[in-house]
């Protein structure tokens, strides 16, 4: 089932009178439960493409349709609400809320969606177990390693059962062991929860585990390999 349609999308930045084609006429589709990596050298447009898919940025031209909804047709407030209900985000620098515990960080979006306490608790503990941090439920981010924080960020992204998760260089700040653990967890959750994962990455390990690898160069898709 097709959940993301990217139709001839371009993004042009005007920096100091110089036009930069960050994304240049990209057309892509993503299916349910895909585990896809977007690769390419620095400046190839990976992060920009993820921001466009996530509705954090607007394309200069083209259309992005998510589960039948054209993002360009949504008002600013509707877009924020759409992101909350449909998209999970994992950032390179984890971006957890430092004053909240691991449990509170994971249940934050569920709170925004007004889930009941019982539902929240069940889902939070389910995810904390899945990422192997159930015992650290009451720890604050500052007391956890980078790998642990990123696992909490993954749990937060999945908390409200989004249609897909966008992860921008999720392993960039992690050591080899933490990165492997995180990828295994994400692959497992992708399989169990049937949630699409789309990564931008330089990391060969991520590329190795991805079921689909899309390569960007100068904002254009130069290859799109689906693995069995």
């Amino acid at each position, binding site marked *: 089932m097709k959940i993301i349609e990217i139709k001839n999308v371009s993004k042009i930045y005007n920096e100091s009178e110089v036009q930069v084609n960050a994304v240049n006429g990209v057309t892509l589709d993503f299916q349910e439960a895909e585990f896809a990596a977007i690769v390419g050298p620095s400046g190839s447009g990976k992060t920009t493409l993820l921001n466009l898919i*996530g509705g954090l940025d607007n394309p200069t031209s083209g259309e992005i349709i998510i589960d039948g909804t054209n993002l360009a047709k949504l008002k600013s407030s509707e877009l*924020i*609400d759409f*992101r909350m209900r449909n998209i999970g*985000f994992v950032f390179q620098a984890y971006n957890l*809320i430092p*004053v909240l515990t691991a449990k509170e960080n994971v249940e934050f*979006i569920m709170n*925004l969606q007004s889930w009941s306490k019982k539902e929240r608790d069940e889902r939070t503990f389910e995810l904390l177990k899945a990422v192997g941090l159930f015992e650290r439920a009451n720890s604050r981010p500052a007391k956890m390693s980078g790998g642990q924080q990123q696992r909490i960020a993954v749990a937060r992204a999945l908390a409200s059962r989004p249609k897909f998760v966008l992860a921008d260089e999720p392993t960039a700040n992690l050591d080899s062991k933490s990165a492997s653990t995180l990828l295994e967890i994400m692959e497992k959750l992708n399989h169990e929860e049937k949630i699409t994962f789309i990564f931008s990455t330089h990391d060969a390990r991520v590329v190795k585990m991805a079921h689909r690898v899309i390569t960007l160069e100068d904002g254009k898709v130069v290859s799109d390999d689906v693995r069995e």
Partner: protein
Amino acid sequence: MIWKTAWKNVWRNKVRSLVVIASVTVGIFAGVFSIALMNGLIEQRISDALNDEISHIQITSKNFRLNNDPQLTIANSEGVLSVIKSVKGATDVSERTIITGMANTASKSAGVQIIGIDPDMEKRVFTLYSKLMPGTGDYFEKDSKLNLALIGQELAKDLNIIRYSVDSSTIVRVREKGLSEKLISKLAPITGKKFLNEKQFIKEMKSLFSKAEEMKYGLLIRKEAWSFREGARMTLTFLDKENNQVGSVFRLTALYDMANSMFEKSSVFVRNSDLKKLMGMNEKDFHQVVVKISNVDQTDEIADILALKLPDLEVTTWKKISPDLAMMTDMVSQFYLIFGIIILAALAFGIINTMLMVVLERTRELGMLTAIGMNKKKVFSMIMLESVFLSLIGAVIGMIVSNILIRITGNTGINLAQAAEGFEALGYSAIVYPKISAGFFGIVTILIIITGILSSIYPAMKALKLNPVEAIRAE
């Protein structure tokens, strides 16, 4: 969740939050306590004026207040008194005879208002009887055949009735009051010497003590060094009912101290019977009837009723008799408003500054929150709650501290003895009892919450304008 996150965010940077809270605490404490002090001072002044000087309502013949003509008397005072007593809320009355005259001693004279009173009636309306200086006599209690007069401490000083001297008993008293031996030794040159008036004594004191010592201990020494000869006399001269000048010797029954220099300098109390005899007035005629009422807020209402029932007389309320007091009560609310605005404005700028720093420091986090779906209303609420929490914590502590201090000083009083002369010259007591109503704290709390909300608008707007893509990339 927003409340919980906002609360936890307040404590993210503990030192900064504590500094803001401390400054709000100090500001609120200073504001509330100053207002309580001012309120206490003004309420005390009004209370003193109503209980000691003018009472709530005065009834006179038409034009008596304007002309002070002794012939403008209230005839049939018994009828007037029965009318007043029939009005609900009018609790007590006192009849007075009033004449302007001169008070003279061998060395000095002063213009005074001579007030003839019935000591028993007067006791029910005024508290003058409780303001006698210890050791100076009694409140017309001795059934003397001599004319008796009760005068203020300040008039006694002006007429050289109070004299000053330092003797062995003075030394003992000042030592008991804590004067050091070093300072006591400085009194040696004037020990045994008598001073005719306060001015001479002060001049001598200034030559013996440093300015700081005189400021600190001058009043204490003067209080212990003054002396008054019981039974001292003075002459009162005035015009009688037929405009003939009359005069008579009055023995001082006591001195009073009302913490109002002007009143003390100008008001001499004598018995109605003594004054009327000298003035040739009918025993049942009076110049003034003062009325005490049970509830000061009913003054105008009762005055209107009395004016209707006594159409031939002039009924005047305390606000008209002493417009400065009325103005003061009106000014208090305006003073609160101005003071409140200044403090809340200072508080608002402090909060705005802090919250702008908070938004700047948390740019990336705020970008992340918007990215994952926290809408503008919730981002705004979170920032607003943080500023309300910051201001409210400081305000509550400030109000608790000021309430405790107001309660303590409200009982003990704050002694502004060093400025006593200045205060008393204006009619204010040098001992101030700060006072504030419980409702005032409720108003302050509401105003602080409003200020916190208003102060958060600009920083919150800054947060709402953040572009999530740029904010997430921010360092």
